[in-house]
């Protein structure tokens, strides 16, 4: 079975380490915050100027001056700090954020990512995604393996305008955990019950398949 949104978030959460500063994009990446392993401490960075993002507020604690990058009302955790957008992107471009998780329309085997623009449709903007992918040391892309028409999103070469070039090394899709190196996709894990054949069939780019592909550990 392909992973659910929650299971995708669970698998991505296995990339977290104690003491990590983490930037989570909008959508599935946001759900990763729900699966921080017991006993592990991470600080969430929100690029509008908050390090130490906490859970959503109650009606009593809601504050219009405290939002996340998705413009949702949030709270701040113990040890949180507020700062300007310039400081926020100094953290991001300066490589101070340990892990960045974001979605994508397409990723190719050179590590290029397209996530912000579909020509012919209205372009809303890239927000902070280009700054994030250009500089983060450790990026996980999480997305469905194929689009709604069944077409692969893991390509030889991206067809859409790029968000960043040569910057993606790890993908958690609903079918597989894949790393990119030496200009190829490498299959490392498969979703429980998903066959290697299905993953191969739904990967348009060059995919290196080892003899044994373990199943992901998700519940």
């Amino acid at each position, binding site marked *: 079975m392909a992973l659910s949104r929650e299971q995708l978030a669970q698998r991505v959460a296995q990339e977290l380490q104690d003491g990590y500063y983490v930037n989570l994009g909008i959508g599935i990446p946001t759900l990763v915050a729900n699966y921080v392993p017991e006993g592990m401490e991470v600080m969430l960075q*929100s690029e509008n100027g908050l390090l130490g993002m906490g859970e*959503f507020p109650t009606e009593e604690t809601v504050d219009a001056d405290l*939002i996340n990058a998705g413009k949702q009302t949030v709270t701040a955790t113990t040890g949180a700090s507020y700062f300007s957008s310039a400081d926020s992107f100094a953290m991001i471009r300066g490589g101070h954020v340990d892990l960045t998780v974001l979605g994508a329309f397409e990723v190719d085997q050179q590590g290029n990512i397209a996530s912000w623009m579909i020509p012919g449709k209205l372009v809303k903007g890239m927000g902070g995604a280009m700054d994030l992918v250009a500089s983060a040391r450790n990026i996980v892309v999480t997305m469905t393996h194929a689009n709604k028409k069944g077409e692969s999103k893991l390509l030889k070469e991206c067809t859409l305008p790029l968000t960043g070039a040569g910057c993606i090394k790890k993908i958690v899709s609903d079918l597989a955990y894949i790393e990119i190196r030496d200009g190829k996709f490498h299959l490392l894990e498969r979703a429980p019950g998903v066959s290697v054949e299905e993953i191969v069939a739904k990967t348009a780019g060059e995919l290196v398949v080892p003899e044994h592909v373990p199943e992901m550990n998700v519940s």
Partner: protein
Amino acid sequence: MSGFNKVVTSYDEALEGLSDNMTVIVGGFGLCGIPEGLIGKMKSLGVTGLTCVSNNAGVDGFGLGLLLEDKQIKKMIASYVGENALFEQQLLSGELEVELTPQGTLAEKMRAGGAGIPAFFTPAGYGTPVADGKEAREFDGKMHILESSIVGDFALVKAWKSDTMGNLVFRKTARNFNPMAATAGKVTVVEVEEIVAAGELDPNEIHTPGIYVNRVIKGSFEKRIEQLTLKK
């Protein structure tokens, strides 16, 4: 106004000198930390042909969205503009031009503009449509593009507190682009929730020194929330 007293008491004084075709930098992230009264005054003044530099373009009927109603904005420089139907309509009809800019690059353009740095190299946008027509150069084995800084004829800023000398303190994530915007205006006007006497703010805790600020006005704020999200 005399000496270092930056306080003005009317929006007419606050925006004196603002005219058609100017470049106006506006602080805020979404609807958080926007100078609501100054935007409202821009609307009632009816200035047109504006180039607005702000992370977002407001929503229909609030924030910079108000200036779209009478087509006062000619060009928008922003990182994300997806919250606004009127914006979309004017963009598609060609009445409005947009220059989409990566968010960190936008912040740095303002910071550099205020700091006397005319341009800077950043890795953000290399290999993407943002790099079109821009100089690219390799530093330490990595490609970067040259981005020019921005100075506004006016910068409109929202702060939490100011003293009469224009020293500013921001509140929570309403800080966002406001400190950089404050440095990057030829005329910087700040709308605040509270003005206190000089000396009442602890110099240790001032976020933006008054040297960047020309005028301060006390506003009243609706603080509309774009995505009210509560704990389940």
